[in-house]
């Protein structure tokens, strides 16, 4: 039972990070109906920026709390900047193009960014210093949950709540909901689609960057390739919950996190990454619209 609870908790931590990445996928998909293949790369770039800025500040001998704050800020800022730029270059000129073209463009972007980081930085795994503090009060239950996992849970919860509030109660949130329902109609009632798309990319990239910092602190290492596999998994989570739906993405991420954690714990750790793929194939065969998704009607 102890083992089970432990696995469940680590699955929850994993799932909440997938949720942070899956949110970007699901929001972008909701608005421009595109699987943003390069989303995982944004997450990787966010984590790399945190490492670079953090490393530079550490060398300057700064207080760890400040390092954490400044590097997180830089990572979020730069990831959002990359998100916007990517959208402007690779997706905006293709608004009217067939969906397959945009998808190929996204694959190209993912390949480009990955190799860009590989060439500009290094191909080796770098150890990621733990910027996150240790909590004294977690000592008694250390066997179940450590400080990093605790922080991951807290941060994810806060981000979710903020995002829900933003989408439910602000003007831009309303515009986003309208755009995702019907882009042309939203344009007709005076919503600036380009702004909505930009904001979506900013939010998606920012949450991905936060997820990147958290998971790298959790795993303790980073390299240029981490974005790809995490991106695919987050996508699986988004599809599992019903792509385009925000609560669905969160639910899907937790289900995926638990499955992976329990699967590696009880079956085999060799196949850790394949659980996500198997779930994906199963869900798309059985219920392609996902757990909370709506069925989309096809029209000629």
């Amino acid at each position, binding site marked *: 039972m102890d083992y089970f609870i432990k696995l469940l908790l680590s699955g929850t931590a994993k799932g909440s990070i997938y949720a942070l990445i899956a949110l970007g996928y699901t929001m972008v998909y909701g608005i421009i109906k595109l*699987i943003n293949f390069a989303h995982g790369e944004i997450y990787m770039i966010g984590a*790399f*920026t945190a*490492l*670079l*800025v*953090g*490393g*530079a500040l*550490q060398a300057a001998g700064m207080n760890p709390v400040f390092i954490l704050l400044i590097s997180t800020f*830089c990572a979020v800022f*730069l990831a959002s*900047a990359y998100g916007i*730029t990517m959208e402007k*270059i*690779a997706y905006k*000129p*293709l608004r009217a*193009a067939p*969906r*397959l073209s*945009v*998808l*190929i*463009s996204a*694959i*190209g*972007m993912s*390949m*480009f*960014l*990955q*190799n*860009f*980081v590989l*060439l*500009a*930085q*290094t191909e080796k795994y*770098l*150890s990621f*210093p733990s910027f996150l503090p240790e909590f004294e009060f977690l000592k008694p239950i250390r066997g179940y949950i450590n400080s990093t996992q605790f922080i991951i849970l807290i941060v994810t919860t806060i981000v979710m709540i903020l995002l829900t509030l933003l989408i439910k109660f602000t003007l831009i949130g309303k515009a986003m909901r309208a755009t995702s329902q019907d882009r042309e109609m939203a344009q007709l009632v005076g919503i600036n689609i380009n702004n909505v798309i930009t904001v979506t990319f900013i939010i998606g990239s920012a949450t991905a960057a936060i997820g990147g910092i958290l998971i790298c602190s959790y795993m303790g290492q980073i390299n240029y390739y981490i974005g790809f596999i995490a991106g*695919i998994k987050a*996508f*699986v989570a988004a*599809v599992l919950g019903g792509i385009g739906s925000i609560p669905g993405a969160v639910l899907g991420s937790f289900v995926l996190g638990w499955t992976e954690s329990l699967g590696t714990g009880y079956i085999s750790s*060799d*196949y850790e*990454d*394949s659980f*996500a*793929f*198997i779930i994906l*194939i199963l869900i*798309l*065969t059985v219920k*392609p619209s996902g757990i909370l998704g709506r069925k989309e009607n*096809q*029209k*000629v």
Partner: protein
Amino acid sequence: MKIKILKSGLIKSLKSTLWFSILLFPLLVMKITVKEGLAHVTYRWINLALIVPSALILSELWRYFLQKKGAGGNREGKNRGAVITRLIYGNKKIRNILLAASVILMATYPFYAGMYNTNVMISALIYIMLGLGLNIVLGLGGMLHLGHAAFFAVGAYTYGMFFRYAGQFFINAGISTGWMFWIAIPLGGIMAAVFGVLLSLPVLRLRGDYLAIVTLAFGEILRMILQNWGSVTGGATGISLIPRPWLFGINVTPRIAATYIYYIVFVFVILSIISVSRLENSRIGRAWEAMREDEIACQSMGIDLVRNKLTAFVLGSVWAGVAGVLFAAQTTYINPDSFTIWESILILCIVVLGGTGSISGVILGALIIKLLPEYMRAFAQYRLLFFGLALVLMMIFRPEGIIRKIRKVYTFPVDEIENKPAAEGNS
């Protein structure tokens, strides 16, 4: 007026230069090395000096081409920058001469090129086969297939495992192991077809982006099985010492073997070019193209979607499977690393860059993608960076690829139509 436009353009470029300098600063200027848990950051200021002018030039170029593209939309789409296309399709005489020359050049290649170049060309030819296989699925059927390398792997491992488990039997029976290649060729094709059907089961109901991601997942699962199920597949170390094809029992030198394999692959490529072009103009080929354009309209015209998708997938996979056997025979060593998702994406690049749906485009794409990094060593390191960028740029500026597919136009002599009433309509 003109100066004003120029000025506003310059301001825009300066703005984007500033933007890109901020964007690229951390990753290009700072470089991190971690030693004993301590991070060291070094600064490469020289890169910043390179970023500024190149960003300025690139953003000017970017805006110029986007504007040109926007203006070109009004013109007749047919003539848009189709120099190569016109060269190939325009004049029948030139086309035939070009075709004959390239066939002769390719057919005598091993005699003047040397062993290294021959080996390079063999792998380029194998990629032409892979590209043609994907071309059936993507170019004709319109399905974005990101697991093509998996079928390549199925073919290669069919031969590898056939040798691993049956090789001893052949040796005991006194038959040359070189024969195994000829058995493995149809076997590889059949195995790939079986896996193609397996993949089709979940895929047939899906479309567009979902299909892409499921095929990707399929490829990765297969690779993980190959990697982790060591007792059967040889695991991460793979299978080595796969026999070369048989050549009249002679103990061949590597050079002769390379020539021999070159011709086998060459014949297979010619065969695939002929059969793909025949397929394209067949009833089923037209059904695929209809399916690509609009699935629902196609269905309402009485075309069986499930059957056509299945045939497209299975045929595409068979080509990849045969290419896999050839690959195993050429390298004599296979391991799961040769069949990652990036291999699939490279094959996608071949089709998309060359020209989706066009056979000559796929051939050109394969030659570019395999030969360019091989002969430009300085470029090899950056090849994936450039191919990724090329995918994006191609989609924006030239979605039809370098060589555009010319769609078949059915023409009738005018008087024939006038003489025959429409009711007879034997099209």
